[in-house]
């Protein structure tokens, strides 16, 4: 565990972050966009835990941070899905390009 340097873990989390970002940009389905957001949030959690473990071992702030992030992510996912369902009811489709009323 000690031989794996912090940077490698950060590489992994950044890679995960940008995969989530790619998903957010290209997926046309709102639910898949939600999934990519979940991926992004998880990569952030990894970062927090890694920093806490490698840089501030005597404290546990990083861990508490990731705990709270997880709770908020859950709330956020719930609200997002409620919106998606509502959107589905009005637009009969959850393709993101159909919901463009909020334009000029």
């Amino acid at each position, binding site marked *: 565990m000690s031989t794996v340097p912090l940077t490698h873990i950060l590489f992994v989390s950044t890679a995960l972050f940008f995969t989530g970002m790619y998903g957010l940009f290209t997926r046309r389905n709102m639910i898949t966009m939600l999934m990519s957001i979940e991926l992004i949030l998880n990569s952030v959690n990894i970062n927090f835990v890694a920093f806490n473990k490698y840089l501030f071992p005597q404290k546990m702030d990083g861990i508490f941070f990731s705990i*709270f992030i997880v*709770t908020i*992510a*859950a709330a956020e996912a719930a609200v997002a899905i409620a919106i998606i369902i509502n959107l589905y009811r009005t637009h009969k489709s959850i393709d993101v390009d159909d919901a463009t009323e909020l334009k000029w």
Partner: protein
Amino acid sequence: MDTSAIIFYAISAFTLAMGLMAVTSSKIFRSAIWLLLSLVGIAALYFWMQVEFIAAIQIIVYVGGIVVLIIFSIFLTQQAGTKMPKALLRRTIGSALAAFFGLAFSFNLINHYGFKSTGSQHFNASVSDVGTQMLSTTEHGYILPFEVVSMLLLSAMIGCIVIAIKPPQEHAEKIGTKPENVSSPEPEEEKVTENISEPLITTEV
């Protein structure tokens, strides 16, 4: 290259692969499953970092809760098997380029930033320590954020219910049996609440 490094590399390769598959697969249900597996991979990573409590939370909340929720919403909104429409080629290339640029940029930054540890002694994040610090009101206590988060979860729940609830008149149409005659002596407030959103004009037929 001792065994834990190997384990780490395996887990991270697995997670990244699952993540990539979740983002690029064409069937929506299948991508949900890839997401689930990648979250499990992340939980394994936590285990590798000996923060078992976080790993447990990860599995319970993320894998158990959110992904299941997502799968529910998939079934609610459409047949799982349909192929999702491919995004425009121009957009995919653009976002791929953006992602790679971001990746390269942060790699470069991470390499150049010299992380140096401050603390010396051994890191242990046992569940009891986490629990005591979570609720302690002393200097590093997290009691206040803990309460605030609970308030947040409550409001999120109420919010979801309000958003997702079906508006009453659809409810009324579904019933659709009770005739509305003008002269009916029904008590005022009952009728009023009944078609509050319906314009009064319709009653004077």
